[in-house]
């Protein structure tokens, strides 16, 4: 399977995701934001980091870059798109995913491992997880507080477009297990076509027991199958 990782000035998880993809047998290419063409890709990843120093709003400037026009075209023709952390913020700013990512409720940058419940696995990114699996991934962000209008929130819940919610190790989902204030403890969302996933946690950091755990692997093997 061919993957492309888009690189902006300020991206800092691009090498991590490239390592994860290569380890899991993707044929990966790095794509610079000024490029006007995408290599043939089954999966496009927009990595985490601080593209353009988070100027204006996180992801706002990157969303207007040359290569994003091509990513939007690919997304609209069904290519799988994965936006992690700043990548999620960029996808929101392009309008490919709806809603907004506000500052964390307690105004602090949060960098820690959190528990997530796989609330929906009926999509190409999560089918190798079991529904209600509890996994542990790392988060590292300042603006991860997901917000959306009531009718869109209902649509997300009804159409199974929320694959991950913040919880504790027993799977409890409530305010006390919500690290950043996200509405309904949302950690990631899909578009209606379920080919675009935006998530704040970093699955690429959880692919090796030597440095963390292997809870992130399921996401990549789901895409491969």
């Amino acid at each position, binding site marked *: 399977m061919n993957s492309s990782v888009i690189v902006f000035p300020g991206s800092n998880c691009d090498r991590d995701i490239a390592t994860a993809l290569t380890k899991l047998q993707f044929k990966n290419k790095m794509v610079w934001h000024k490029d006007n063409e995408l290599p043939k890709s089954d999966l496009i990843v927009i990595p985490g980091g601080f593209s353009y120093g988070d100027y204006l709003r996180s992801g*706002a400037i990157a969303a*207007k870059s040359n290569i994003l026009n091509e990513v939007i075209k690919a997304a609209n023709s069904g290519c799988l798109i994965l936006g992690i952390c700043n990548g999620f913020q960029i996808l929101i*700013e392009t309008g490919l995913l709806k809603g907004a990512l*506000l500052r964390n*409720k307690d105004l602090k940058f949060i960098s820690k491992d959190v528990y997530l419940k796989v609330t929906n696995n009926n999509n190409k990114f999560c089918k190798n997880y079991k529904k209600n699996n509890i996994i542990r991934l790392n988060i590292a962000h300042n603006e991860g507080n997901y917000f959306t209008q009531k009718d869109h929130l209902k649509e997300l819940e009804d159409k199974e477009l929320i694959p991950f919610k913040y919880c504790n190790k027993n799977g409890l989902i409530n305010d006390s297990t919500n690290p950043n204030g996200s509405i309904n403890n949302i950690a990631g969302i899909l578009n209606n076509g379920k080919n675009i996933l935006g998530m704040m946690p970093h699955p690429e950091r959880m692919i090796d027991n030597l440095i963390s755990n292997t809870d992130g692997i399921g996401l990549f093997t789901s895409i491969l199958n």
Partner: protein
Amino acid sequence: MKFAVIITLKKDVLDPQGKVIEQTLQNMGINSLKNLRQGKYIEIELNESDEKKAKSAIENMCKKLLVNLIIEQYKIIKI
């Protein structure tokens, strides 16, 4: 022609940064403070002498890049 764009969070969107500023001012003893919201201020100079055209160009900038209309609102002021 020069314009100022003032961008603030919409009324229903929580403004934690504004809340902290508000609480700090209250802690400093400013008791008359009722409410405080913070935002962004952008100055833009245009090569355009027609005010109507200039304003519509600024509107366009706001909608396309400067403002996230889901959570923010804006005001354009000629300066």
